[in-house]
């Protein structure tokens, strides 16, 4: 013990070399343990990326590619599989739930993933945790987007912000689907999985972006695509007016209008389905439909060369023919009223209409127009009347447009023309990239995997995530080994630094050894002094290294989580870490045998003679 106290005092006397050695060992220990920690944490966060999902199904191909693209959103997306396949598989008796996943688009470098609402119910990570919403509300709207926490913080997005999705994964390349802006409905809480770097949209919207083959939707027949999306509808109707005035004699045009009306119907139907749209919108859409019908009816009348006096009746008939979902009264404007309030109508529909209408401003205008229109109908020629008709139509649509805008203000989102068309078209997803499947019982996994791998209608691959993750991790084990070797060498360099410092000090310490010998120290004491010094330096280095590691982890934890979405869990040293530290300590003592043996020899030969 006396020798250890001497060793300690000796070290303190040579503070500079002591601290340099101490730091070199401390840094190597920090590096070694840091690498170990990172390795463990990476492995953990890697294996925690998905849980509770029994199978991931994708098109036939490499399972690692399917795993990487579907779970980590890394690399090329796999080939698509049919949505029908998804529907078939989800109906399979062993399947408890199935979530369709579609990938391939990005937003400013972040992955855009399309899925449906069941994703939030079934997708889980880590210890079967579900994704949780930090702010906003997951909106079942076609053009709502739910963004991951990192997307929100890095791009400084908030609820209601507009997002344009880019085709392809790159940050700059690819086609911008700027005709279909999304509004942010919810921001997810950090999960430290790839979801943090992901924007989640609806499958329908993904399909909508792609069905037009990356051309804007706007190319409705007879229309000119306008770049602005704000008042496109209005402009659109101007176009209608212009068009009607100029070319209503073309029969083809009528057909086109009919087509348009059908689209409008669909839109209407879609709004019926959509619980987020209130009555007002509904009615506005109804208005819109009605007017288009009216318009169309007018054209139809024109085409039929009917008498103007019979216009109303004719129009009515036309409406009856075309409208799939409404009851129609004699006059087109009554039908309009019908759409608004679903009320009883009589011939004096204008007044009733006025009384019942919620959209007074608009409808008053419409009424006037209708009145005018009626007047014209009774007295004017066809062309004139039509003109008036269109005039009215335009006004009406303007009002409708305003209403529509007001409605959409709920979301801070205003549908572009393309989006409305997309809604009207009632787009259904055709293709997806992957299916996350939960099974009714774990025993069903292999059977189901077999079933999927031999799926008749298209070639599929089913992977078991936990297994595939482990397999993939094996791939990284080479890098892990390389990293380990590097850190072992760093520790070795630290220890060799200590060795060289002790060796260099030996000659100048031979006098000290002689003095110690003279007062009765044995060569073994001298040996112990050197070994003790090395042991102290290494032990202090290890302690400092561990302290540095924890300081570093504490400092890095927040930035790693916020900038890299990597959650570093700070734990106690593992048994493995302690083993490593013990090995370092023992190595230091073993290395110190070299100067220890030398000094032992010196002290034997020098004795008490002071030669230096």
């Amino acid at each position: 013990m006396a020798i250890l106290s001497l060793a300690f005092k000796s070290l303190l006397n040579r503070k500079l070399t002591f601290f340099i050695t101490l730091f070199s060992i401390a840094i190597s220990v920090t590096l070694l343990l840091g690498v170990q920690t990172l390795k463990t944490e990476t492995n953990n966060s890697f294996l925690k990326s998905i849980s509770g999902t029994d199978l991931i199904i994708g098109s036939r191909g490499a399972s690692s590619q399917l795993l990487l693209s579907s779970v980590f959103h890394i690399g090329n997306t796999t080939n698509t599989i049919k949505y029908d396949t998804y529907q078939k598989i989800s109906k399979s008796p062993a399947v408890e739930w199935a979530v369709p996943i579609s990938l391939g688009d990005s937003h400013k470098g972040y992955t855009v993933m399309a899925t449906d609402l069941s994703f939030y119910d079934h997708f889980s990570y880590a210890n079967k945790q579900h994704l949780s919403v930090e702010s906003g509300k997951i909106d079942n709207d076609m053009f709502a987007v739910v963004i991951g926490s990192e997307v929100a913080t890095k791009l400084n997005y908030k609820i209601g912000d507009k997002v344009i999705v880019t085709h392809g994964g790159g940050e700059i390349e690819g086609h911008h689907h700027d005709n279909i802006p999304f509004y942010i409905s919810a921001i997810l809480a950090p999960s430290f999985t790839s979801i943090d770097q992901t924007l989640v949209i609806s499958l329908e919207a993904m399909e909508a972006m792609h069905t037009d083959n990356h051309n804007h939707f706007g190319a409705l027949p007879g229309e000119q695509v306008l770049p602005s999306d704000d008042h496109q509808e209005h402009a659109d109707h101007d176009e209608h007016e212009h068009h009607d005035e100029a070319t209503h004699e073309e029969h083809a045009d009528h057909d086109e209008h009919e087509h348009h009306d059908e689209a409008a119907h669909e839109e209407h139907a879609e709004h019926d389905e959509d619980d987020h749209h209130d009555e007002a919108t509904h009615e506005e859409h109804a208005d819109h439909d009605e007017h288009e019908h009216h318009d169309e009816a007018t054209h139809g009348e024109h085409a039929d060369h009917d008498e103007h006096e019979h216009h109303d009746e004719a129009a009515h008939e036309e409406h009856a023919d075309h409208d799939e979902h409404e009851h129609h009264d004699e006059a087109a404007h009554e039908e309009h009223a019908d759409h608004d309030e679903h009320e009883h109508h009589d011939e004096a529909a204008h007044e009733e209409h006025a009384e019942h209408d919620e959209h007074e401003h608009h409808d008053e205008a419409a009424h006037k127009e209708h009145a005018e229109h009626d007047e014209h109908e009774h007295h004017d020629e066809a062309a004139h009347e039509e003109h008036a008709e269109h005039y009215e139509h335009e006004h009406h649509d303007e009002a409708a447009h305003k209403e529509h805008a007001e409605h959409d203000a709920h979301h801070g989102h205003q549908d572009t023309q393309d989006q409305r068309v997309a809604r009207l078209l009632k787009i259904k997803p055709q293709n997806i990239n992957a299916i996350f499947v939960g099974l009714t019982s774990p025993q069903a996994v292999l059977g189901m995997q077999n079933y999927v791998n031999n799926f008749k209608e298209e070639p599929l691959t089913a992977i078991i995530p936990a297994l595939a993750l482990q397999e993939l991790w094996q791939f990284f084990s080479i890098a892990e080994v390389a990293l380990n070797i590097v850190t072992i060498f760093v520790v070795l360099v630290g220890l060799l630094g200590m060795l060289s410092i002790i060796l260099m000090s030996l000659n100048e310490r031979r006098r000290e050894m002689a003095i110690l010998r003279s007062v009765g120290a044995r060569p073994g004491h001298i040996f112990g002094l050197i070994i003790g010094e090395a042991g102290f330096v290494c032990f202090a280095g290890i302690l400092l290294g561990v302290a540095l590691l924890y300081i570093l982890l504490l400092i890095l934890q927040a930035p790693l989580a916020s900038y890299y979405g990597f959650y570093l869990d700070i734990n106690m040293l593992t048994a493995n870490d302690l083993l490593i530290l013990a090995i370092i300590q023992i190595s230091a003592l073993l290395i110190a045998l070299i100067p220890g043996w030398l000094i032992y020899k010196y002290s034997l030969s020098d004795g008490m003679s002071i030669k230096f």
Partner: protein
Amino acid sequence: MIKLTNLTFAWHQKAVIEIETLHIQKSQHLFIEGPSGSGKSTLLNLLGGVLTPQQGSISILGQSLQQLSSSQKDTFRSNHIGFIFQQFNLIPYLSVLDNITLPCTFSALRKAKVLKRSESLNTEAKRLLTALGLTDPALLQRNVNELSVGQQQRVAVARAMLGSPEIIIADEPTSALDANHRQAFINILFEECKKEDITLIFVSHDTSLKNHFNQHINLPEINKANANLVTQEAV
């Protein structure tokens, strides 16, 4: 008290020490005169039990050194002999007091003796320092390298004397001192050795000092190996 008989020590096949007989009496102050190269440090190492002779015997205080193991010799040395060297006698990283009490780290016997006399090692160290004329308490706080050479040598004396070993061997302890300090140092050393009844073996090439001693030996005269060396050189 110290008896050397037919002592031979060779280093790399070359005889360095060949002494037929040497007797040193208790309480004697012996001056061994020897220029450098005459084998005096080898003789001191043999006396200290650090080196083992190839032939002959060394008996100290009735104890034959060849009967002891090397570690027993180390303990024997620390129990019974105090050493003073030419200079740089002190361990640089130990305080003045720690330097003085260092022998007690290795010798339980001397520690026991100290504690019989004083209440603690440090008290005894301070008492010795005072006796050696180092009364300034500020000295104790200083790094040993900041002491003057004369002060360092007196600290070395204090260390050699702590716990009253029977023998003190001083190897050129005054060579680093100037004439005044040399005289003062020798006076103090003699005084303390007398007081404690310590046998003093003083080795030096400085013959001017031999008058202070009641016995003196010229090492080349008794060391035949040395004579051989000289003859060889002559040839």
